[in-house]
């Protein structure tokens, strides 16, 4: 049986199962969410209005037997935070279950006529529209628990917290993890507000007795899977007890700090004196000391072999939050001048409960600190900002709109955003390659869309930085394309480290995709296919009114020197414009 597209129209409460049209047949994950958004969403529409959609798509290999670390779900549409096209993807239980129901994508469209909230229950028999009024005003910890009590078979729960109900631009979409906690987020870009605007509080996905995922060429799939698994198992970062497994993504805290690229106190310095206290090493120590439910090496979905996630324990050993990531520990830590992991964990839990993106939330608090509303380092004050959001106070609603709105409200001009989205945990003045990605990606400032983390190189012994500014643009494009491909596979982006290091793993990834889908894809096609995705996204943004003048880093980075390297952003605009100069309408 071929895969179907499930269309759910909230205006008339109709659903339909459609064959996947030819033009979308080769896409999955991000490629598919972007193709559908490009074809069906008016780029000039208001993101919260009736003409935007939430497109949900598992990757090519998601749900196939034992493809390692491949349970990702992509969420796409037009972003209320950036006004651009958006794809945010998440781990958790949803991807595998949607795929096993035989669905290529779910398209959520329209706006209910009545001011009513719904829970959509999707299983092999179809879709039910349940009244969600009992869930309104509740955070995601409660929502996940209630829905597991209400529905059998430990279903996936895709949901929005209070922030999504209020349609705040920093609202993310939560996916429950194997412990039924809301630690997994399609966080960036406000897709939770787009879901809230459709009147949908939660989507329950039960794949029991679903048709499963067809494999077109089992031998090719197995061959690809073997190569990929081997590369993951061999690489220092992803192997068992490797950097990610032992310390999580937060292995980076001390490294990026040592490199002078850790944005500190609203991007005013590149090093934080308290970095070690917020580091992955420290998390591992706390987990060891407190015991109980705390753990490192946790999986965000069944079948991950890297297991970079963790459960951070409270002082008594009970689970406080999962997962404390590098980005989170940085945004709510160094960037706010806070060096207390217990507070960072509490704030992360608030983010997961209310349904806001941790990066944008941390950057927003840093703006409030810059403005003098709070002091840098005021952890109590920082924690209380989430009460404001939960209660929907005017101040909370400003915070919930993210960095740009907050900076405007308080007259702050050091605003670390591109296209309305704030930067993650790599300072582009010290780590210039990532600056090119921040400036030019179709998503607004985003590290995951082209991970070119090359810090300052020591020019000792007559050797200098081997990469001139002009070369960084080509490199960023290659990485943005590779990422667009990986985001379409359903594999976790962290497989990028082993497969970009070990060429056999790269081929294995492509072969596993070819094996599942029957598409003729080899490692040599990855970049070109990725570029096709980027092209659709870029054209959408162009039609939405974006020009190359939007592909710029914020002005202050051009005139403020960043310690300790005392560097400014020097990349020429023309070089940035080169990155997407190849995109033309057909």
């Amino acid at each position, binding site marked *: 049986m071929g895969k179907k597209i499930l269309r759910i129209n909230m205006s008339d409460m109709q659903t339909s199962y459609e064959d996947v049209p030819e033009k979308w047949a080769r896409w999955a994950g991000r490629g598919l969410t972007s193709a559908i958004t490009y074809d069906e969403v008016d780029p000039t529409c208001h993101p919260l209005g009736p003409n935007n959609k939430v497109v949900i798509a598992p990757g090519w290999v998601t749900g196939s037997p034992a493809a390692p670390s491949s349970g990702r779900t992509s969420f796409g549409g037009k972003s209320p935070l950036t006004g651009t096209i958006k794809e945010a993807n998440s781990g958790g239980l949803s991807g595998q279950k949607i795929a096993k129901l035989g669905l290529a994508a779910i398209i959520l469209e329209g706006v209910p006529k009545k001011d009513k909230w719904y829970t959509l229950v999707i299983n092999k028999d179809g879709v039910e529209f349940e009244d969600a009024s009992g869930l309104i005003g509740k955070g995601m910890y409660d929502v996940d628990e209630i829905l597991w009590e209400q529905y059998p078979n430990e279903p996936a729960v895709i949901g929005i917290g209070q922030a999504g109900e209020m349609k705040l631009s920093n609202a993310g979409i939560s996916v429950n993890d194997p412990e039924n906690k809301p630690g997994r987020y399609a966080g960036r870009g406000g897709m939770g507000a787009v879901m809230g605007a459709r009147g949908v509080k939660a989507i329950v996905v039960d794949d029991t007795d679903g048709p499963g995922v067809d494999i077109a060429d089992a031998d090719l799939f197995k061959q690809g899977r073997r190569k990929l698994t081997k590369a993951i198992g061999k690489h*220092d*970062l992803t192997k068992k*007890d*490797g*950097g*990610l497994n*032992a*310390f999580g993504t937060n*292995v*980076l805290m*001390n*490294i990026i700090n*040592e*490199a*002078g690229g850790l944005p500190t106190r609203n991007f005013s310095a590149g*090093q934080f004196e308290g970095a*070690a*206290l917020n*580091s992955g*090493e*420290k998390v*591992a*120590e706390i987990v060891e000391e407190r015991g109980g439910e705390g753990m490192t090496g946790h999986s965000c979905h069944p079948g991950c072999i890297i297991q970079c996630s963790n459960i951070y324990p409270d002082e008594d050993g009970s689970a406080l939050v999962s997962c404390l990531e590098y980005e989170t520990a940085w945004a709510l830590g160094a960037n706010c001048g806070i060096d207390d992991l217990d507070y960072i964990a509490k704030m992360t839990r608030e983010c997961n409960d209310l349904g806001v993106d941790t990066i944008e939330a941390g950057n927003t608090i840093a703006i409030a600190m810059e403005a003098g509303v709070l002091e840098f380092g005021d952890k109590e004050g920082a924690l209380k900002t989430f009460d404001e959001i939960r209660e929907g106070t005017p101040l909370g609603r400003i915070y919930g709109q993210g960095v740009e709105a907050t900076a405007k409200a308080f007259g702050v001009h050091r605003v670390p955003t591109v296209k309305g989205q704030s930067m993650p945990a790599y300072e582009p003045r010290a780590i210039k*390659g990532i600056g090119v990605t921040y400036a030019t990606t179709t998503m607004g400032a985003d590290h995951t869309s082209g*991970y*070119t*983390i*090359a*810090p*300052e*190189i*020591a*020019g*000792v*012994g007559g*050797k200098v930085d*081997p*990469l001139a500014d002009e*070369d960084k643009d*080509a*490199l960023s494009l*290659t*990485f943005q394309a*590779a990422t667009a491909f990986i985001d379409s596979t359903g594999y976790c982006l962290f497989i990028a*480290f082993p497969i*970009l*290091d070990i*060429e056999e793993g*790269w081929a294995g990834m492509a072969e596993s995709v070819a094996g599942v889908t029957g598409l003729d894809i080899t490692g040599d096609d990855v*970049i070109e296919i990725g570029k096709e995705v980027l092209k659709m996204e870029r054209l959408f943004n162009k039609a939405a009114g974006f020009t190359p003048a939007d592909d710029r880093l914020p002005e202050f980075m051009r005139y403020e020197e960043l310690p*300790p*390297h005392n560097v400014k952003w020097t990349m020429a605009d023309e070089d940035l414009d080169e990155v997407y100069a190849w995109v033309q309408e057909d």
Partner: protein
Amino acid sequence: MISIYLYGKLRRYAPDSRPSGNSVIEVEAIEDETLQMLLDRVGIDIEELYTIFINHKLLTSRTKYARFLGYQQVRDDTCQSWDLNVVIKDGDRLGLFGRDMSGLVV
């Protein structure tokens, strides 16, 4: 004085090896001493190292990230022959990460 900051399992070479603090070895500089000689002097096994920073700039790393896509490599030579002949001077700061902290992808 030369300060050697240690991370991950390498912290055990320092007097205070808790992850929450700085694990630092401080030694007097010796004229014309290379990095190789310095590491031998303080007894750090080069085999354990993954990434070396000098004064917050990347000196070298074992990673070979995305060579086939033209990604910037720290050194043209591979990690089998690290350039450890750099002279370390008074006031320099080294940052050393072991194989268990192989997080940097350059």
